[in-house]
């Protein structure tokens, strides 16, 4: 019987792959978005910065920051779900990913529902892939700040999936 892969190696492989994926998106870096991972579950983290403010009188996060955070989270979740099996079976490694960055899904449409004012502090988001076919995917994203149950924004988007290079 084959020994299971050591836990530290699994974690390192998954975390490096995630880091490669997210680190390659300049706009995610520009906004200060990072991702936390538990197994295959991802949580987007938007680290607060004064430059993210839209209304300085309230003050509140810019609606465009919120839309961007939700869209980045949706795309990373969808890409992560798309790459997961190949990463687990070893068809893809963090090294080969870095050499040849995976093509990302393209947004077809994105609808943001602004539920509450975005407060000047960190925000979190999780996306759920409701359907992912060979060509199209539908993703829902929810974002919160202090309380997981009190969403301050949510969004639904449709995406065109990249075609696999090996056909």
């Amino acid at each position, binding site marked *: 019987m084959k020994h299971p892969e050591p836990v530290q190696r699994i974690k390192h492989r998954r975390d490096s792959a995630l880091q490669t994926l997210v680190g390659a998106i300049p706009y995610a870096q*520009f906004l200060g978005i990072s991702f936390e991972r538990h197994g295959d579950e991802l949580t987007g983290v938007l680290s607060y910065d004064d*430059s993210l403010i*839209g209304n300085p009188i309230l003050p509140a996060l*810019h609606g465009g920051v919120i839309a*961007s955070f939700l869209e980045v989270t949706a795309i990373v979740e969808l890409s992560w779900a798309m790459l997961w099996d190949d990463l687990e079976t070893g068809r893809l490694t963090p090294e080969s990913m870095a050499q040849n960055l995976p093509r990302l899904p393209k947004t077809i449409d994105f609808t943001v529902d602004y539920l509450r004012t975005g407060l000047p502090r960190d925000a979190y988001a999780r996306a759920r892939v409701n359907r992912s076919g060979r060509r199209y995917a539908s993703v829902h994203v929810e974002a919160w700040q202090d309380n997981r149950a009190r969403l301050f924004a949510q969004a639904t988007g449709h995406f065109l999936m990249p075609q696999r290079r090996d056909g």
Partner: protein
Amino acid sequence: MPTQDPQAFINALPFARALAMRVEALGNGRAEISMPWDPRFVGDPATGVIHGGAVSALMDTCGGAAVLSYPGASTTATIDLRIDYMRAATPGQRITARAECYHVTRNVAFVRATAHDEDAANPVATASGAFTFDRQGGAA
């Protein structure tokens, strides 16, 4: 609404300034705002195309500006915004959004917008949204 200097509108919004937005025209429920291509705004490094989120931020800012320039408006906030992406914006080119606040009720403003790069005949994205609408003098 600081109509005497339209750019003052952007300068008061830290994130609009971070995206280097420029007011091209503003007044009577219509706004035109542009944003340069910048490597920091790229979404897919394989193509160099600006991230959809940056286009959303431009559309949201332009939509909000259109509402605030509607006669009698005081403050606004986005209720919802839908963006349809028609094509990838050409890397290196400036993106310009035009928004129109085409109807207001006592409390709600309806907005539609389009964005294009240097090829003005082929929109990059269109948007429609609802914004809160508060009148000057607070007749809420």
